[in-house]
């Protein structure tokens, strides 16, 4: 799945400016996380129309990159995330970063994972019957 990674200088108004571009272009954000240092941050976004969002942001001079991540479904219950991560650990896949959100599907939550080997991670999840988001918006249903 495509994730947008946006460079945001740590200054008043910089984050709003990015979000304003998305608002103007009618882009819906499903999930986001912000990794920050004292001088800048990286805003990571999952949106409904990633390609349109990237074009719009670039036009406004925003530094944005498209990153391939996995969005995996998990049970919205104790142990849901632990189970998911255990599968990756067993397959010796490292996690660069991750963040989770609750989608609209009943009883399911989603975790966005940036891993060091996306192919192995995908394979492991498939083998274990873990649903993954594939840019077709299934976490909305």
């Amino acid at each position, binding site marked *: 799945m495509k994730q947008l990674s946006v*460079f945001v*200088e740590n200054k008043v108004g910089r984050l709003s400016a990015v979000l304003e571009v998305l608002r103007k272009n009618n882009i819906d954000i499903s999930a986001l996380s912000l990794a920050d240092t004292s*001088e*800048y941050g*990286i805003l*990571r976004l999952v949106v409904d129309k990633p390609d349109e969002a990237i074009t719009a942001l670039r036009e406004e001079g*925003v530094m944005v*990159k498209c990153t391939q991540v996995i969005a995996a479904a998990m049970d919205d219950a104790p142990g849901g995330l632990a189970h998911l991560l255990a599968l990756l650990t067993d397959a010796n896949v490292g996690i660069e970063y991750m963040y989770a959100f609750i989608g609209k599907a009943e009883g399911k939550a989603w975790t966005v994972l*940036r891993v060091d080997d996306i192919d192995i991670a995908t394979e492991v999840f498939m083998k274990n019957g873990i649903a993954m988001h594939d840019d077709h918006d299934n976490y909305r249903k």
Partner: protein
Amino acid sequence: MWQEKIETMPREELEALQSERLKNQVKRMYERVPLFKERMDEKGLKPEDIRGIEDLHKLPFSYKQDLRDYYPYGLFAEPLENIARVHASSGTTGKKIVVGYTQKDLDDWADCVARMMYAVGLDNRDFVQVSYGYGLFTGGLGAHGGAERIGATVIPTSSGNTANQLQTMVDFGSTCLCCTPSYALYLGEAAEEAGLQDQLKLKAGIFGAEPWSEDMRHEIEKKLKLKAYDIYGLSEIMGPGVSYECEYQAGMHVCEDMFIPEIIDPDTLEVLPAGEKGELVFTTITKEGFPLIRYRTRDICSLNYEKCKCGRTHVRMNKPQGRTDDMLIIRGVNVFPSQIEEVLLKVSGDITPNYQIIVDRVNNTDTFDINVEMSEELFSDDIKSIEKTEKLIKDKLRDVLGISAGVHLVNPKSIARSEGKAKRVIDKRKL
């Protein structure tokens, strides 16, 4: 005066002396320095074409790059056994530049500094604390030589260790301090804090090797309770003492019996009339070990030939008011924006990201920051990789420049552009 006859020599007589010395120097260098001969030949000039200072403008220029190209001894005009000492500049672009002195050169240099010390009221009863760094840098040993020459008691503390500097100053009764102006101000503040101001016996300060302002002069004078004098020099020509302020502080007297200054238009390379502002060029007419003809200093200033109230006839130059190249002096180190550009280019791949250098002076220390616009090449979705890139830029800059800079990644297109071109350097120091 230290050498009254020379220092007050009527201009006609002085010019005759300069002419005689220039002719000899040109002849000597033509025979001994292959690069000089080559440049003379290119211009179709023979030593005998130079009949006096009226022909100075015909001679070829020399450049800092020459010193790098002929590193280390390629431009010396004396066999190495006659070289008594070498100094090297705080060179930054990989290769240092090296200069050599015969014993006579060292004696002449000491005379330059001695003239200044006498001019500002020092003699053999004084205690001269030399807090310039001792070493390849010309500051320490240059001031040391002058103080020794006038028979003063030299206190060679070298630079650093502020508390010890102040204690020495108090205990040994230093009457003169030689160091960079920013260090003088720092010492002054430390003295104030330590409540030592009233125990100081300083009367004169000889400060140079970096640009400083009149405000800074007043501040130093107030804090250290002395009179602060400006000294100018560059190692290529000699070191500190090429020119200096006398008791009237109305410009810096150039030791004209040794160095002939000219002001040129850096674009047309024509010599400008007296009083006009342009690039300062020096010809060394007494130097044996490492002489230079028409050396382009890149410093911008003007010359004043009016006789000074002190009685000295030697021309006065004003404080350099900038550079013809884009060199910055940060914490005493020469920095060229092109060096920074190279580092960014290397880290970033093929394209140099937009950048801006910001220099300021906070608490009397230069701050040095570089804003770099985030680019495709530098950006990643991962903080760790960006931090790695940042660190790589910082490390490489320190390697290349010899001083560290703060590196800040900023939004694309956030560096102000005028007519599409970003302003590369913002120097907020009020000098």
